[in-house]
């Protein structure tokens, strides 16, 4: 789960990482008041989770409170890359002398946390990693030992600071605390700004929390459905893995790998998948019904391709769920069903009794779905 900038900054503040003074507001009037309180130039920042809000007009420098009011008014209620802006942050504008980069991630290939430190912040770190990797220092941290002081010192030294090096070391240690405490996949400060009066500030803040750890991050997980679309949120409530895509062929499978492979097969054959929907292992009829209902109701989905390989999942349960969903949803959408594995015969019988043809092989079923999808 991604945190909003303001949430990440609140956590930073709590853990002693310096952040420019800020307020989070939901009306232009509040923005005006906040700017007046903060004094001087402020930055108005749309609180959205999508990347690249800066280029999309979601970050504006305001010289006066009135200007802050205007920007807030523009942003609030608007959409940035499809995401509605409900809150903006009004924050003191820092006179920046240099922009630095600091983050802690879980490095999958090393299987452990890694500190990334660069004297060149404010830029796209992925881009920097491609073009000038020598400007990024990577320091692995043994998860059984935790962050060592010397590692924090090394990370800080690489930022090419003078007297602020000690403070930067302290920020690294505190960032690691945050990383551990909130089960982070990523805790990032980009840029970490050195102000013209020689102070360090986390000017932006990004935290991604491991979804698997939300059960022990109760204070955060209250509204973890917030960054999801309606259908995504509905699917999540039902414990499905669901991702929306651009095409018109809905995909419903069991198992993440098979679901992706089914999407890919449809694509290779010339079709466009409308979603990824993995009902997981061992789903009962009721759950299948709910999953299929979701796709039946989804406006963009025209064809639905159900591809089930029964292991723990029983084909008869799937068949019953399909029949049930079709009864409940009077919408007329074309279904392509492939069923294979446990209780296959029974499942096939149930579906055929309800006039649904059952494919044996994935390829021929995919071909059929693509053919139907092209016609609509």
């Amino acid at each position, binding site marked *: 789960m991604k945190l909003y900038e303001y949430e990440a900054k609140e956590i930073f503040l709590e853990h002693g990482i310096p952040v420019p003074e800020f307020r989070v507001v939901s009306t232009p009037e509040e923005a005006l008041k906040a700017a007046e309180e903060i004094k001087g130039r402020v930055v108005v920042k749309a609180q959205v989770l999508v*990347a690249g809000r800066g280029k999309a007009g979601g970050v504006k420098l305001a010289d006066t409170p009135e200007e802050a009011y205007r920007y807030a008014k523009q942003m609030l209620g608007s959409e940035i890359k499809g995401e509605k802006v409900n809150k903006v942050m009004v924050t003191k504008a820092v006179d920046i002398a240099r922009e630095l980069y600091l983050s802690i*991630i*879980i490095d*999958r*290939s090393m*299987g*452990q*946390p890694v500190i990334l430190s660069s004297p060149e912040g404010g830029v796209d*770190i*992925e881009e920097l*990693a*491609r073009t000038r990797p020598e400007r990024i220092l990577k320091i692995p941290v*043994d*998860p*059984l030992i935790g962050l060592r002081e010397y590692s924090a010192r090394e990370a800080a030294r690489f930022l090419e600071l003078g007297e602020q090096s000690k403070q930067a070391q302290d920020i690294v240690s505190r960032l690691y605390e945050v990383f*551990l405490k909130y*089960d982070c*996949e990523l805790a990032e400060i980009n840029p970490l700004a050195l102000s013209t009066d020689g102070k360090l500030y986390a000017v932006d803040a990004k935290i991604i929390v*491991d*979804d*698997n*750890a939300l*059960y*022990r991050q109760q204070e955060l997980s209250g509204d973890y459905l917030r960054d999801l679309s309606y259908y995504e949120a509905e699917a999540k409530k039902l414990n499905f*893995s669901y*991702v929306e*895509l651009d095409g018109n062929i809905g995909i419903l*499978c*069991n*198992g*993440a*790998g*098979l*679901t*992706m*492979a089914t*999407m*890919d*097969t*449809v*694509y*290779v054959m010339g079709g466009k*998948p409308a979603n*990824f929907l*993995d009902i997981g*292992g061992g789903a009962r009829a009721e759950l299948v019904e709910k999953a299929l209902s979701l796709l039946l109701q989804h406006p963009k989905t025209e064809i639905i391709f159900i591809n089930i*390989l*029964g*292991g*723990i999942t029983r084909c008869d349960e799937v068949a019953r769920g399909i029949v049930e969903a079709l009864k409940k949803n009077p919408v007329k959408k074309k279904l392509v069903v492939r069923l*294979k*594995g*446990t209780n296959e015969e029974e499942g096939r019988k149930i579906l055929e009794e309800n006039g649904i043809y059952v494919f044996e*092989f*994935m*390829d021929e079923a995919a071909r059929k779905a693509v053919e139907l999808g092209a016609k609509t």
Partner: protein
Amino acid sequence: MTILVNSNTRVLVQGITGREGAFHTKAMKEYGTKIVAGVTPGKGGSTVEGVPVYDSVGEAVRKHPEINASIIFVPARFAADAVYEAIDAGIELIVVITEGIPVHETMKFVKYAKMNGVTIIGPNCPGVISPAECKLGIMPGHVFSKGRVGIISRSGTLTYEIAYAMTRAGIGQSTSIGIGGDPIPGTSFIEALELFRDDVDTDAVVLIGEIGGDMEERAAKYVVETGYEKPVVAYVAGRTAPPGKRMGHAGAIISMGVGDAQSKINAFREANIEVAELPSQIPEILRKVLKNK
């Protein structure tokens, strides 16, 4: 010989009294796996499918010193503890079926296992099977058949799909390992490839990858750099997956510019590993590479 599991494998089931644990204990026994004991704290003294249940792994291992593998079905919140318990009891192979373990936990116990010379398969995996010898996992046994091709996969059902296609085509498997869909697997592609390299009963290996991380790229590099002697065939799922979205598995996500399918496919091709466009093409590619050998 097969790898990891065979007819000498003696299994402990951790979380045996749970719904999943009990169900798969039955299924594994039916397949012929030698399940000798189970553990659920507080349920010691009972039995599940005729298997004696103990309160702790230590107790189970003292009573059944022949135990050499464990399979873990305990819920995510308690799974890490179950892994430590198995490692500390000296069990050398641990299959972690459990899905949803926080990655901060996984990275610690994976490291601890390596320190102690213990092999972990998973977490969030279907397990490992050496057809006709031992099924240590939740896969449907009937889609597999005994043979001389190894499978290493990040996925469950997709593996069954491909194994089934192989079986229908008369190409059996030596061992099939589901390494799991989490970002940090206990056993990586490379480690599994190393095991198959040394297995006299494996002639070729099928790698089933997916988006997320760079394990496929590293495996490709490993194949090139070590001059891997056995033919490797690959499939990569997720060509149509958008960046930044988790595709079911915790580990299946393109993030920070890393982990898209094309990069993996390219890496395999550069390593002279043939990549199937469709899962159904694996058997014919296998037939071809095995003939050329």
